Each structure stands twice: as C-alpha cells, then as structure tokens.
C-alpha cells in the first residue's frame, strides 16, 4: 500500500514538473518577444523566476475560480468567474471585459456562418429531390 502511494506521488510530481517545463517554455517565448520589442535582455534566472511566479499564481487563480463557481452553485467555471478574478485593477478588468466581448462576438459570427452553411447544403440537397418527386408523379 505504501509503495502504491509513493508511486502515485511520484507520478503527480513528475506531471507537475512537465507542466512547469511547458510553462517555462511559453514564458520564455513571451519574454523573448518583449525583449526584442524593447531591445533589452533578460537573464535566464529572471525568466525562470517569472515562470515560477506564473505557475504559483495559476494555483491561486484555479482555487479562486473553483470557489467562485461553487459559490454560484455551479460546477462549470464560466467567464463571469474569470472577470471576478480580474477585479483588482480597473484597467485589467476593463481589458478582460473587452476580450470577453470580442470572444462572444467571434462565437456569434461563427454560429451565423455555420447556420448559413447548413442552409446552403439543405437547399442543394433538396432541389434534386424535388425534381425526382415531380418525375415520379408524372
């Protein structure tokens, strides 16, 4: 039994390590963009520190989001929870709200496109069927 627990713990730790590595890579890419843009350089330790802080902030975010959703008696986290998470700074909240509207707009447009495509396909499949019906009646 002890061995099973140890193995599980090992697995969880190694999974966490892989995620941290993924975050580190992403943070590195983002920082490189910023560094190129501002013509400054980041030391490796700085990038590692930023990625560590980001990983830890994720934990706080995740727990807060879960609590917000549970408080609203939901099991799915939605955009309102994320907006509540961004409440500390006014400009951040405004930016997140705008992004949310952009995403909603994009979703609407995509739905409209899908609907139109479906209607077109139905039209095309109906016309030969109608012609077939007319012939059989004659």
């Amino acid at each position, binding site marked *: 039994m002890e061995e099973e627990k140890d193995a599980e713990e090992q697995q969880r730790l190694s999974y966490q390590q*892989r995620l941290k590595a993924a975050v*580190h890579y992403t943070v590195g890419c*983002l920082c490189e963009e910023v560094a190129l843009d501002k013509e400054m350089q980041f030391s490796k*330790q700085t990038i590692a520190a930023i990625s560590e802080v980001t990983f830890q*902030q994720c934990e706080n975010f995740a727990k807060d989001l*879960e609590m917000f959703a549970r408080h609203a008696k939901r099991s799915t*986290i*939605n955009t309102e929870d994320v907006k509540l998470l961004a409440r500390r700074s006014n400009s951040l909240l405004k930016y997140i709200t705008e*992004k949310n509207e952009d995403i909603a707009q994009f979703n609407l447009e995509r739905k409209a496109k899908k609907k139109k495509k479906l209607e077109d396909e139905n039209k095309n499949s109906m016309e030969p069927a109608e012609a077939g019906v007319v012939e059989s009646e004659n």
Partner: protein
Amino acid sequence: MILVPHTFRSPWMGSRGRVAEGLVGNLVCGKRERVCRNRAGELVSKLLHLHFKDDKTKVSGDALRLMAELLKIFVVEAAIRSIRQAQAEDLAQVDVEQLEKVLPQLLLDF
C-alpha cells in the same frame, strides 16, 4: 498600469510525447497570426485542473480563452515592468533584482 493591447496566438505542435513544446498555448510568436482556437487553452486547462479540489469542476471554453489571456497579460506585465525598472536603473540586462522590485505591485494588481 501598462497593458499590452495585442494578443498573439500560435498553432499547436506536439503529440503527447513532447509535452514541453506541445503544450504551448496560444501565447507564442506574434507573427504567426493563425489561430488554433480549439487547442489554444490546453496548457491552461491542464494547469487549472491540476489545482482543483473537486474532480467535477469544469471550465467553459470561453472562460478558458479568457484565462489564457489573463495569464499572458500577467507574464507580459511582469516582463515589461522589469524592463522599465532596469531601464530606470540604466542597466543593459534585466536581472532578478529588478523583478524582485516590481513583483509586490504586480501581485497586488493581480
């Protein structure tokens, strides 16, 4: 507060084997504008699920995209504020000291 107005996305790479590269979310390289929106939040999703206490907790697609955006802003703010600090101190490279100076305000803002 400085906010980076543009968002950058990147197409996914990676099969399950190459986790580190493959889990890169929608955050890399501004030049690659093509959006793989369906996969954009996989890293973010995994990160969030790692810390959920309840297994039944799920994240909606839109919330995931917003979270990815939020995390990207966090990283970029940290980077830009550190750079500003280093520029104020007339340094050529950004070291951990500069990050340490900007970290308290950054964490209070988030």
